[in-house]
């Protein structure tokens, strides 16, 4: 019965091989060997029985015949999608980096607003130490949130970061203030700073840039409009409340997204937690390197030049540009992989891209620093300008290494630089500005060398 039915199918007794070859032309020209053709024919339902109708003993022989009769000319592949190239209009993407830069810098105005409340000598130190200790928490939470495979997971981790991070950061602010004998006003301002840092970080990772800008307006406008102190503080209170609400809104996990997600941990494993530690540590090291002269001042080494605070704000604004550089470098690196036919050619081009992007960042940072410092007294301004330019460059290189998965290299370099600066201060006690400048120069030079070597490898850009 089987045989009868198979032969009784309404079709010609013999089949045309040329017709088959034409039908299967893409398979034939792109095949890597005869077996691929065999597999392709079988997938089309052509087995030994049908191969016989084409005049061949079995499908393997039919495949060999077809393969021998065609020239290999695979279709030109489409470029693999570049995972780093953003979507949407270029001006919107670039505008977002500018906006993020502004958002990093705008909170600086808050320090101007609260200056009258910070009469005590230790107030600046309390604020600085608290700031430096908040960074690792917010950086670690952000790294953990970005590592989640789903957006719901990201939002949950950010929410947990706010729920646990705010009390933790507040507690450490209170402790530092209490240890240094600060008054309640200073401790309150420090707590507000911690609250802002933790919630703003969640809102920013949650992509609420425009709303963040609007939330910051009341505080910033009130400060620069020269309004009475109480009104200005009220403006900043509105800002703080706005950012808190934004953070809560952007970290909400909808009911239908909760299926299978352990809400108490957000699905974070110990491995994921350990992977976020280097990012937290980098936050701590970067904070310590940037505030080095400020902290030294409270150790009795003399006040830093007034330009320092302005330079800090300029450097914060430049972080928006730094983010653009990171993405531009990854995009270019991925693109170069697909147009380079030899390793040497790739290495040369990708190093050129690295130098080009770092130079552009430094030029823009120089403009920002120059503009910010021009409003401050000229004493020590050149040293501050050079020091923060080099520090900005070094932090950019460290971030570039990190974004390519090389966290160890950037941590070791930054850690060594900080350790060297501290030991020089402790043993020789020269001018902290000179130590910071020398440290920044050495760090930038070493990181540039490491980046040229490591980021020039093809495997780094995988």
């Amino acid at each position, binding site marked *: 019965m089987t045989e009868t*039915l198979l032969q009784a199918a309404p079709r010609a007794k013999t089949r045309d091989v040329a017709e088959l070859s034409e039908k299967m032309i893409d398979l034939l020209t*792109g095949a*890597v060997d005869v*077996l691929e053709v065999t597999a392709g024919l079988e997938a089309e339902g052509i*087995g030994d*029985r049908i191969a016989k109708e084409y005049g061949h003993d079995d499908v393997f022989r039919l495949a060999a015949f077809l393969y021998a009769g065609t020239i290999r000319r695979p279709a030109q*592949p489409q470029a693999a999608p570049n995972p780093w190239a953003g979507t949407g209009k270029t001006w919107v993407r670039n505008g977002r980096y500018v906006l993020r830069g502004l958002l990093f810098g705008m909170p600086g105005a808050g320090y101007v607003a609260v200056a009258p409340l910070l009469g005590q000598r230790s107030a600046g130190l309390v604020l600085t130490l608290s700031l430096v200790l908040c960074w690792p928490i917010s950086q670690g939470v952000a790294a953990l949130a970005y590592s989640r495979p789903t957006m719901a997971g990201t939002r949950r981790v950010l929410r947990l970061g706010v729920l646990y991070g705010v009390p933790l950061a507040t507690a450490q602010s209170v402790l530092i203030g209490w240890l240094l004998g600060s008054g309640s006003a200073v401790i309150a301002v420090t707590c507000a700073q911690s609250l802002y840092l933790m919630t703003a970080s969640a809102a920013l990772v949650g992509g609420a840039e425009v709303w963040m800008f609007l939330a910051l307006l009341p505080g910033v406008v009130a400060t620069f409009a020269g309004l009475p102190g109480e009104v200005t503080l009220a403006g900043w209170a509105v800002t703080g409340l706005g950012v808190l609400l934004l953070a809560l809104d952007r970290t909400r996990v909808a009911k239908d997204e909760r299926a299978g997600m352990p809400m108490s941990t957000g699905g974070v494993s110990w491995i994921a937690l350990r992977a976020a530690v280097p990012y937290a540590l980098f936050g701590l090291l970067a904070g310590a390197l940037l505030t080095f002269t400020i902290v030294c001042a409270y150790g009795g080494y003399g006040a830093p030049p007034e330009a320092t605070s302005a330079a800090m704000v300029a450097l914060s604004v430049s972080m928006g540009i730094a983010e653009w550089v990171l993405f531009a470098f990854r995009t270019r690196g991925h693109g170069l992989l697909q147009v380079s036919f030899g390793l040497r050619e790739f290495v040369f081009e990708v190093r050129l891209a690295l130098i080009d992007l770092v130079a552009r960042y430094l030029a823009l940072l120089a403009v920002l620093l120059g503009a910010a410092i021009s409003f401050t007294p000229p004493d020590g301004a050149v040293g501050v300008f050079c020091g923060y330019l080099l520090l900005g460059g070094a932090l950019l290189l460290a971030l570039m290494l990190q974004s390519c998965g090389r966290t160890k290299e950037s941590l070791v370099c930054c850690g060594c630089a900080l350790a060297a600066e501290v030991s020089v201060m402790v043993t020789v006690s020269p001018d902290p500005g000179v130590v910071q400048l020398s440290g920044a120069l050495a760090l930038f030079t070493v990181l540039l060398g490491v980046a040229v070597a490591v980021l020039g490898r093809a495997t780094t850009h995988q």
Partner: protein
Amino acid sequence: MNITLVTEGTYPHAYGGVSVWCDQLVRGMPEHTFQVVALTGTGAEPLAWEMPGHVTAESVPLWGARPAGGPPSGRAARRFERAFTSLLELILSGSPTAGAQFHAVLRDLYEFGRTDSLSAAMSSEGPVEWLLEAWGRRTLPEGVHPTVYDALTAIALLEHAFRPLSWPVARADLTHAVSNGVTVLPALAAKWAYGTPFCLTEHGIYLRERYLSYGKGYTWPVKALILGFLRLLCAAGYQAADLITPGNRYNQRWEVRCGATADLIRTVYNGVDPAEFPEAGPEPERLTLSWAGRVDPIKDLETLIRSFALVHQEMPEVLLRLFGGGNKEYREKCEGLARDLGVGGHVVFEGRVEEIRDAYVAGTVVMLSSISEGFPYTLIEAMACGRPSVATDVGGVTEAVAANPNSPDDGDCGLVVPPRDPEAMAMAALILLRDEDLRRHMGMVARRKALEFFTVDQAVGSFREIYQELSGKKV
């Protein structure tokens, strides 16, 4: 006896025919201890099967984070370079006589992996450079210019594929690999380390399936390299196995062509539990063609629907019911096709059912339209239920429905038609739909053959004998 059962992407983390087979096997032999080495994606896959007490499982992730260890230096680095460049040359040469050399290179890389991290060595810059150089020395097809990206992609695929080779395998009496390809790497490692014999079972043909999956989505140089590697690896698997046990005789064509010795091949058919598939009983009131399985393009439901449209022209009262979940887009495409052919109201996608037997009970005739199969459970389950079938001539289908060798005069247990041929399929369906006596007779001989040849007890019994036979065969 301690048995290492090596699986890839199936038991105990996924459902499907091969997983059912594994579950039957381990449950059928409680006298042995089974250690399942499951090659998985990330290693985070949850268990899909509850394992009995004599079975333990460990996951070997192929795609998770890279195993620990740094790249080699000094003498180890030179040793790795020699082995790896030889590997690349053998793959790119495409020589049919590369088998023995490939086996030696694989062993070199295994020995290297015992003291150094093979993954770290393969993830360094060297392999990318060597591959680009090796490509540069060869004449490639017109218009093919491999890029650094191609080299990185190809080396990354190799690095992932090689991970099971360095997995520390436990000493056992036997390794049973449940497919060819990367699954044989732990089996080879156990053989080299302890002389453990190994049995290689293939339900489908691993290499054939990889030709189809790598055929799309990769550039020509990447595809050529990875398929060249898998071709050599499968040949090494066939040659090193002490016994090859395909799930049907049809598979032997590929196996022999890819390097298996015909004398070492013993077909062991899948089996069903007769208690789970008792006789279906009376036919449904309305003439119905039923289909059961995973909704997927490989099942070629389009041909089934086209053939049904032809049946519908002749017998408008007939219904087509399809049971099973799967690819939603494909289901929608098929529903669209049914509407376009004017039979939308007569084709019903029923979705998943608790008891798959219900799908066979619901059909006057059970249909199978796949373009590729091993030895389909759907068919032997329908046979056990005593339903006649119309199935495409793929894999072991013809063997399954051929007349019972013990009573050849009873005739075939179903009708076989060429794949992708709606007219032939419609003709076969009409023959059965129009002849109740023929249906009853075929259903009866199908059930008798299934109970005689395709039961779990027989499948498990065959492996019980094979295990005894092989365990005394230490190298």
